[in-house]
């Protein structure tokens, strides 16, 4: 009996909270506003947005940046081409080029907060490791966005066309998708990376994008197949809207959640793929810099100079992690089922209610 009672209370309280949210939604918020509000309410995702924006600005402004005919000077004093003298002073264990970054305040016996000459240390020939890591992080962020854009656009176009028109076009496009899926991304990436690696990282990113749209296109297709059967599409058609208008004005805005979420996942996957390819030597190659390449160059010196290993890894993880969290926040924001989500406070209240009614259980 007690269990039964509890369930009733639970149902009642869920209804109440759902009503509360539903009431809020009748306040006259558009779909976009609801999504925006939910996303802003997702704490981890908001933090991640700030982290990602900050990292991107930080990393790109550190080194010289060419924007068409203009050249913007970076705020960091070294370039990756500079070869300053190896620092030998104050380094433990007879190492050279140790990091000068100090986070321990003076009153705890440290050197105070400061970057110093070479915050992340120097590599074997004395190049400033901070500059190298910045360059590598730029590469990763660039690859991430290029793959996201190329893969996202291709996947959306293919998925939309095959989902909307169905029939033969659908069959052909989906077989073509299957076709690309059979080629594991790491294999195609290595073949491309190794043989065209000298064409530069942008080219590599572009190619990776060309082979990474398959999952997205299947999702978009599914979404289009579902949406095109709905009444509002029929209504639009009756009103005389062209196919183009139906796709862009009626279906695409409704499928945008699925697209955005899987593009973020695609992007975080792209970072890991690029660094992994560079790590095994098939991605970004030697004169250029990549975080994966840096790690593979200095993994053997982990015992003596661990900082050469930690910093590139730290940047990979923070970029990938923040993108993943943003994706999670977006998923929650776009997912209509998430309306059931209760805040911690509500949940507590519910627990208290349950406790008081079935105390004897």
């Amino acid at each position, binding site marked *: 009996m007690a*269990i*039964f009672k509890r*369930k009733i209370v639970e149902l009642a309280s869920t209804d109440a909270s759902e009503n509360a949210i539903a009431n809020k939604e009748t306040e006259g918020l558009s779909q976009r506003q609801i999504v925006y509000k939910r996303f802003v309410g997702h704490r*981890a995702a908001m933090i991640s947005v700030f982290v990602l924006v900050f990292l991107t600005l930080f990393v790109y402004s550190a080194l010289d940046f060419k924007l068409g005919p203009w050249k913007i000077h970076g705020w960091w004093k070294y370039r990756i081409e500079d070869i300053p003298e190896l620092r030998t002073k104050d380094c433990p264990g007879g190492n050279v080029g140790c990091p000068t970054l100090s986070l321990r305040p003076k009153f705890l016996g440290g050197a105070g907060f400061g970057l110093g000459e070479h915050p992340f240390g120097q590599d074997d020939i004395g190049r400033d490791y901070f500059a190298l890591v910045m360059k590598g992080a730029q590469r990763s962020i660039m690859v991430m966005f290029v793959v996201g854009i190329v893969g996202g656009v291709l996947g959306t176009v293919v998925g939309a066309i095959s989902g909307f028109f169905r029939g033969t076009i659908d069959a052909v496009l989906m*077989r073509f998708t*299957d*076709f*690309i*899926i*059979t*080629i*594991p*991304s*790491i*294999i*195609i990436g*290595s*073949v*491309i990376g*190794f*043989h*065209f690696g000298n064409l530069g990282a942008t080219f590599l990113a572009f190619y990776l994008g060309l082979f990474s749209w398959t999952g997205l296109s299947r999702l978009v297709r599914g979404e289009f197949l579902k949406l095109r059967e709905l009444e509002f599409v029929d209504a639009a058609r009756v009103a005389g809207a062209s196919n183009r208008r139906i796709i862009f004005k009626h279906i695409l805005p409704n499928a945008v959640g699925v697209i955005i979420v899987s593009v973020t996942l695609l992007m*975080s996957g792209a970072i*890991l793929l690029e*660094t*992994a390819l560079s*790590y*095994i*030597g*098939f991605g970004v190659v030697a004169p250029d810099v990549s975080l*994966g390449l840096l*790690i*593979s160059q200095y*993994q053997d010196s*982990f*015992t003596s100079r661990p900082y050469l*290993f930690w910093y590139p*890894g730290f940047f*990979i*993880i923070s970029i*990938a*992690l923040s*993108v*993943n*969290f943003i994706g*999670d926040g977006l998923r929650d924001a776009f997912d209509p*089922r998430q309306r*059931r*989500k*209760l805040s*911690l406070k509500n*949940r507590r209240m519910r627990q208290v209610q349950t*406790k008081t009614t079935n105390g004897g259980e």
Partner: protein
Amino acid sequence: MRRLGILLVILFGSSFILYNLAAISGDPLEGLRTSSEPSAKQQIVTLTRELHLNVPPPARYFLWLRGILGLFVGHIDFGNARNGQSVSELVQHAIPVTIRLVTAATIVAIILGITVGIVTALRQYSRFDYAMTFVSFLLYSLPVFWVAVLLKQYLAIRFNTFLQNPSVPVGWIIVFSCLSGIFWAGVVSGNRKRVLQIFIVVAIANAGLLEILSLLKWFAHPGLGPIFLFLAAVGTAFGVTQVSVGIRNRPALKAALAMAALALVSYYPSQYLFKHSQKLSTLLLMVLFTILLGALVGRLFAKIDRGPVVRTSIITGFVISLLMLLDKLMQTWAPYMATDAINGRPVPTIGQANSLLDQSDFWMSTLDTLMHLVLPTIALTLISFAGYVRFTRGTLLDVLNADYIRTARAKGLTERTVVMRHAFRNTLIPLTTIIVVDFAGIIGGAIITESVFGWVGMGTLFRQAISSFDLNLLMAVFFITASLSVVANLIADLLYSALDPRIRVGAGK
């Protein structure tokens, strides 16, 4: 059948594209052309003849395809590698290595991932859920090569050093105990007082256990012995019964406990068996025998519903036999540590087997293989674990919101029945298909793991093929991974329709 045909066409098409892409992207003779060696010209001629380099790539593809089509008459020919070795032979050696590498990791990741996924779904929006969400996202963002280096340093090298003098320092005991206390307190629901109780109990138990193990130098001479084995078996019996049919099902509990008792009785005979039979087949027979025994015991104890009881005792028997194997392996530990090849540093950082070790002793070489698997397995598990947690959690939450779950609860079924019988089984449907597809994909993903840990498997072949423009080798690796993924997709579709009667394969679209 029609699907199979389409898949074959797809495979044909994608291999054609990749072949040509790889062929035009590099010249295998480039190194020789610029070489100043006197024999270079000769080599160019031989290589050109052997690899048919004078035939343009699209046509050469069909020469390659002819060898592959031998698949249907039982003799597949991948052609020769650059150095004249048969690619089929190379692949035959490489495949078992890679499979060994990924199988363990996949199984561990699936079991752990599903378990944690279920717990987080049941405790949605709890602190434990948030913590596990964060951890799984973190793991999801980790590059495997980076983790591997860390594991090598901290797990292998430090742990080996620790084993030189295996006493756990007090600080570590406190840290470990608090961590496990927090973990279990998070898993168990309840009010603050109960959580605190659980935390204290678990932490103290953990600290005590570690201290005792440390004092007894257990880490140098591990083993369970008959008594601990029996205790563990009883624990298994209770655990399996609870999860499988619920502790209230007395016949099942009795059957499971009987299996535990049988384990105690058969401890010494099995030790004798372990000592004198050094073959994998005997072991498999033993496990099979335990399963049969479980079935028999289950039948004896069952009253009304035979199925669940038999199932419980079979699972219990299986787990217990694994425990006994573990015990035997632990006993092998001390002699293994003492051998010259190991020299007291048992966790290897690189390679797939210790070549210096005497391979005649079955237990010794098994332990050696397992020790070499430890680090790669952990690395791969950490990476793929996150995906399973997220997926299980998401699917289970969807299912738990379904109306039939509400109905099941309204009927007054126990929470265990609702979760395990109604919800989890339905979660398994999409999960199975994901697992099957993942398993095919992980072979491609093993390329990096292999390179970090110095295993010679498919990944190594692949890297070798790319850096030396070895087209036949590259295509062999591609062909195997691609066919695996195609077959896996097919199996996934078939499984999906087998598990979910609402979906029919080949139904009119």
